[in-house]
């Protein structure tokens, strides 16, 4: 990977990686550190990483650093007094989306990562499996379970929201 290709990766994937991490750990500074570490690792190993695999590589590195971070700081699950500054939070106008985000935050880290990778990044089951070191069938099963949990929670929240 050339320097230019690396910089293209920064332009194209930094936001996605950051979004994925910050949505997971809900801590902006830690998320920024993780993103920085992931890109640092990409830079160090740029000779071994193909440009077309750079996105997957970044998400893989960031995901595993996030898991390490979660294990170390034991910050999962976070309480509702989020440490994300208000300007960093996506302005989710619709109440349903807020409820959905609360429900997602109550999922376990693996399910949460699966949902975020699938919905935000549009990865296939296979790609998610490569990033999270899971088999394709595991991804499918875990993700479906997460969806059903979210569906149940949304249906439970819906009457109160309304």
């Amino acid at each position: 990977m050339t320097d230019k290709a690396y910089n293209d990766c920064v332009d194209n994937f930094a936001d996605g990686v950051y979004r994925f991490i910050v949505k997971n750990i809900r801590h902006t500074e830690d998320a920024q550190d993780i993103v920085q570490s992931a890109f640092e690792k990409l830079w160090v190993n740029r000779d071994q990483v193909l440009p077309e695999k750079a996105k997957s590589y970044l998400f893989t590195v960031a995901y595993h650093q996030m898991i390490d971070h979660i294990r170390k700081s034991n910050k999962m699950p976070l309480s509702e007094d989020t440490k994300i500054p208000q300007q960093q939070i996506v302005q989710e106008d619709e109440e349903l989306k807020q409820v959905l985000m609360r429900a997602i935050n109550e999922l376990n880290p693996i399910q949460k990562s699966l949902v975020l990778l699938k919905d935000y990044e549009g990865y296939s089951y296979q790609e998610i499996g490569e990033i999270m070191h899971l088999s394709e069938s595991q991804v499918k099963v875990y993700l479906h379970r997460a969806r059903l949990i979210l569906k149940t929670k949304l249906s439970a929240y819906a009457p109160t929201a309304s």
Partner: protein
Amino acid sequence: MQLNESTYETIFLLYIDKELSPKESLEVEAFIADNPSYALEMEALQATVLSSVNIQYPFKENLKQQGWNATYSTIIKEDLQAIPGLSTSFKNALKKEVATEGIIVKPFGFNQQKFTFAAIAACLMVFLGYQQLTKTPASNSIAVNTNTLVVPNTNSTKTSDEIALSNASPKTFAKAETLAKTNQQVITKLQLSNSSKTQGIHLLQKESIAMAETAPTNNSINQTVITKLPSNYNNPITINAIPLPISSANIDAEPTEVEKILTSYEIIDTEDPDRTIFIANFEIDGNKLRGLKRKVTSLFKNNKSERNK
């Protein structure tokens, strides 16, 4: 793909995850159109899908390497240009050709010149050592080879009084008993000779055996240094010697026929398994070898210091 009550949920989940082929997706849409009751199920599942949000990483520019390169490479270039060029003499000092005048540490720690010196010194040491070893003993002590025992007798008094045991130990003395037996005849003759000639220098006491080391003499007078053994030592060799008055007139006298016989060397077979082997002292004149020793020592010292460097 069969859509029914038992399979619809899984297929719907695959549909919202966009894991179905276009054809299968069309089939699902057709199934929902045909069964509106499943439309709510589909809506409920689609509600679990997160819509894309716009979150931007705030320090994206810091991650880029181009900025670093542009900034710092320029600074480094400017710094390098600001440094004045190295002087020619300094460059020459860095060259290996110049360094040969100094110290070059060879792989084995020797340079060629010093190795030559060391080799010559080693050869000299071997040669001198060989000379010392092959030197014929000048003293009249009993010299024992592996197979023969040679008893040199320059005069009667020396042989009778001396059993020179160099560096004798108690073990050596124990073995000396057999030697004494072997040489019994010789000693008897010597005693006879002494008594007949009334010539003697000193006596050996009954309870002790003397270790004598003879000094070279220019006349027939025997000068010996006698060391007494401890009195509690069980003397295996007892020689009864009678004190004889020294006759100065006889000292300078010509050796008689008996003396001539006795001065001859006798070869004694020592095939006896209990034979004793006496090994002569190896003596090196320190004054002669001092310079050589100093050179060798300095060589190794220099070599060590070079290695440390």
